């Protein structure tokens, strides 16, 4: 018997009652909520108060080379970066995915560190690998790449091989040191 996740219809209805209708979609029992970037913080704050107390993940997708623009989310088709906030509730075991879109040249989203401390490193990782700025983040430094690194390697226009690799680094010989 496959497991059916608990419904989040009540939360969607509550969000719609508070913020007006937002675009939702579902796939394999997972509900997504698309939130405009300028309202992302207040919607997420509201969701936290509604019981989504656990922030599972903050990640990002670069839709630069996507075959179709994100078809399942037509309201934000054309945006390059789609942030993924995975929320969960420790009491009701509901799960909800919140999608926030950002675009070049200055992709910027409000940080949710004031809501969940867990977002601190996750947002740093997104900044490091995708170059999305999180406004209001207390400590937005690179997380996995070295500090002097200049690019954002998980962007689709960054090649798998060839750029920023070790053989390109300046070499200090014994003679010079």
């Amino acid at each position, binding site marked *: 018997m496959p497991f059916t996740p608990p419904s989040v219809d009540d939360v969607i209805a509550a969000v719609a009652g508070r913020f007006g209708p937002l675009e939702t979609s579902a796939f394999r029992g997972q509900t997504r909520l698309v939130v405009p970037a300028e309202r992302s913080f207040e919607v997420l704050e509201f969701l936290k108060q509604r019981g989504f107390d656990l922030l599972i993940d903050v990640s990002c997708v670069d839709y630069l080379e996507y075959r179709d623009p994100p078809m399942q989310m037509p309201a934000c088709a054309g945006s390059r970066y789609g942030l993924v906030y995975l929320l969960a509730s*420790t009491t009701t075991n509901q799960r909800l995915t919140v999608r926030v879109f950002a675009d070049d040249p200055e992709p910027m989203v409000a940080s949710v560190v004031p809501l*969940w401390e867990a977002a601190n490193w996750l947002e740093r990782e997104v900044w490091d690998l995708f170059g999305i700025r999180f406004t209001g983040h207390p400590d937005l430094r690179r997380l996995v790449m070295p500090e002097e690194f200049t690019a954002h390697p998980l962007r689709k226009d960054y090649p798998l091989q060839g750029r920023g690799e070790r053989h390109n680094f300046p070499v200090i010989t014994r003679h010079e040191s």
Partner: protein
Amino acid sequence: MSIAPTSFESLEVPEAATRSEDYLWTLNFGPQHPATHTTLRLVLKLEGERVVDAMPEMGYLHSGFEKIGEHLTFNQYVTVTDRMNYISPMANNVAWHHAVETLLGIELTPRCKVIRTIIAELARLSDHLLSNGAVGLDTGAFTFFLYGFYQREVIYDIFETLCGARFTNSYTRVGGVSQDFTPLVIEKIRSFVKTFPKTLDDMERLLTRNRIFVDRTKGVGVLTKEEAINRGATGPVARASGVTRDLRKDEPYLAYADYDFQICCATAGDCYARYLVRMQEMRESLKIVAQAVENIPTGPVSVGIDQRTALPTKQQVYSTIEGTISHFELSMSNRGFEVPCEESYAAIEAPNGELGFSIVGDGNETAYRARCRPPSVLHFALFPYLIRGHTLSDVVAVLGSLNIIAAELDR
């Protein structure tokens, strides 16, 4: 000739502004240190022996696993997941293909579900043996570590019999597993189930009531329930703080709904509670393995070749036309799986916490984006919060009890 400076007045001596920070000293812990076990770095601010603050730093093992995931097919990438949490690679294999099958909408055969449950629980056993063993090792209990590692060898032997690899197994495939269970594997698991409780009793007798160990770990690195949720802790770390979240019960995947087992929780939230939770979880995992190995359903291990999702066995490829066609179709770069232009997230309760993969499909048989949600990152971010106010010797106890695996941390 006088060597004395001509005038002392010319030397600018700064005003002696004594601040409390001037008495602090900084200690670089890692990236290469025996007690970090892997390559991670901590910059500790110490006042005498007391840790005032800690700055964790990661990235020394970053190898771009998520970028590689965008260039390898769903079946190829399983070899990379082995290298994430390499002390329980089987759990990562299961997590990755669980996520892939969620995206593709593949329903596994009952036999495959049970086999994956067994190997995931064996992976949990070997992970907890090592992580608890490492806490013992770092706090001075070397014998305990060897007891644990001896049993890990037995689990390695089971995996070797099963798929030929001891360490990096790459065992699962889309829609199935690479090798079916043989009677010898089942026999080895049975004998492990029989002999392991005795070792577990021995380990508990060695350490659980050991005065030195209890003094080193009790009350150290306390994580409250609110902070555990707020900071995204999952797995044994959260359960030791009273968060009763376990995906095996809350979102029963694979065959977990069929077995009788308990979720182990503690309320203290210190290093000792995390040790106890892991110890108890091993007994529960053993219960699951014991129940599952006696009730493995018969039937095919991979989904049928008519569904064209799982690679057929070599026997099928060489002796049936359907097998040959299916193998050919799945191996061709422009055929392969039917991948929806969609995105989904699926997680399992890995030994370390919630290990999930967000996969974005774009019709190709490689993921457009393969995001791994590693529990270690969030646990490592906890570290400064847990260590503040404790002594330098507690650093290794806290670090060990969080069970941070740098390969999973950096990916």
